[in-house]
């Protein structure tokens, strides 16, 4: 498999970096792949838009920066707007349905939306929005077995919050599976 470039974008405090960290960890620690995570640092990365970039590959990642992602995970509209034009052809957009308003679907971008904030709120902790997104990401992309992602969630979240986070992950994942089934049924 060639390298897959992933960009996760959102607001500071949404857990964008952790999201990237978990994808990278899942690939490299639990799925015998190589994964390099980079992130934007500095004042420009705090507060408003922030992003994490992961490259997942079967070979060692040599060039560490993401240039044309095959997958864009968007948790804020600003982030989406900033990066939508960098998406490679035939790429996947994974977005938070209530926060991001995708424009069109040119270049055959496949788009998958989830009301992740609502899921997180229903679970009682808005903070797990990123983990709901991750579960959904696991379902609608076939980058790696879902178990690898799940394990990475379990070992990356703060001690004592594993159960809540895994629940958030599973809900996102199930929503994604259902969405895929529905779209298959309708085609």
């Amino acid at each position: 498999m060639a390298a897959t470039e992933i960009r996760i974008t959102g607001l500071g405090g949404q857990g964008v970096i952790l999201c990237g960290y978990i994808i990278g960890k899942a690939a490299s620690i639990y799925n015998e792949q190589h994964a390099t995570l980079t992130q934007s640092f500095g004042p420009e990365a705090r507060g408003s838009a922030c992003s994490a970039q992961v490259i997942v590959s079967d070979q060692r990642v040599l060039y560490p920066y993401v240039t044309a992602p095959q997958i864009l995970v968007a948790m804020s509209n600003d982030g989406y707007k900033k990066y939508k034009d960098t998406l490679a052809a035939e790429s996947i957009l994974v977005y938070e349905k209530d926060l991001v308003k995708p424009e069109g679907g040119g270049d055959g971008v496949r788009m998958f939306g989830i009301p992740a904030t609502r899921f997180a709120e229903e679970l009682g902790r808005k903070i797990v929005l990123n983990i709901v997104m991750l579960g959904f990401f696991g379902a609608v992309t076939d980058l790696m077995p879902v178990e690898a992602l799940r394990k990475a969630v379990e070992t990356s979240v703060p001690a004592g919050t594993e159960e809540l986070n895994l629940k958030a992950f599973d809900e996102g994942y199930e929503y994604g599976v259902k969405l895929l089934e529905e779209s298959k049924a309708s085609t």
Partner: protein
Amino acid sequence: MKADPQNVLTGAHYLDGNYAIAEGAIAAGCKFFAGYPITPSTEIAERVSRRFPLIGGIFVQMEDELASMAAILGASWGGKKSMSCTSGPGFSLMMENFGLGIMLETPCVLVNVQRGGPSTGLPTLPGQADMMQARWGSHGDYEVIALAPDSPQEGFELTIHAFNLSEKYRMPVLLMTDECVGHMTEKVIIPPPEEIELIERRYTDKKPGEAWPYQENELISPMLPVGEGYKFHITGLTHDYRGYPVINAEAQAENVDRLMAKVKENVDDLTWLEEKDVEDAEVVVVSYGISSRVVQPAIAKAREEGIKVGQIKMVTVWPFPEKRIRELAGKVKALIMVEMNYGQVYLEMDRCAAGRCETYICGHAGGTVHDPGSVYSTIKDAVK
């Protein structure tokens, strides 16, 4: 000696370069860390401050980098493996007592997570433009040892290596990494403690009254422990084997010659190069740290086109692998240095090539790693 199991987080981790460096230091037995926050190196200090309390280490956030460097020297003489980390502006301040460390022959490790300069420059973006400062940044004549990791994994391994070399050669050792490696997260395998070989400090076996801080006719003297009755004296002034100041040209020659000979006479031991496809190469790309990674796609593309390109990755940048570069200069058409500056280590390569082959610098002002395309173009230029 093997690493102490309590210090080693054996297993596969997903760590950024800075955390990996901290883990390397802890695995190497570092027990004193003095530092001052500076982007992009601060995560090393943060990790150490979190890990130290339960393993008997002391972390102190100092008032500045001048004090940080002085404190790690004091702690080293007190018997602790010690380190600090910083970036460009702090590195400038540390140069003062880095020189004292060289002069007193004090083992310790100093990490520079390079960012773009000069001055405050680019705090959050990478550079490799402190390489000549690493070589010559403190005043006076001396030799240094500097290593450059290309990944978090190497950050871990080379930090241990840096501690080992600092004990072996009784001098401060530099780990010259950069923002890209420092902030890049990848898999880091930490081996079991019994697979981590550590070089421990050599102390004198002579009795108090018979031993001096620098033995006569010995290139690398064993150290004297404090608090054991040796009542020794050491000074940043030019000194004799007794550690006593002697202010004349003869003493200066003897003192400085020894400091330099420690490294110069051991260049073969210190040189660590990783070579690929160099045997049949017409052109060799030389680089270090993160740059040695991003050149690889360009080299692969050129080789696919039938261009005979080889690669040398310098794990040790200082001392410069003079012998190997001279040898290659007699065989190849061109040597290309790829580094995130406008040609610092290139100057050494060009000097060693001595006109026997063409030399190229593929460099830029920093702020991002090389676009493999620019490396590829330089390769094409070189074979024209």
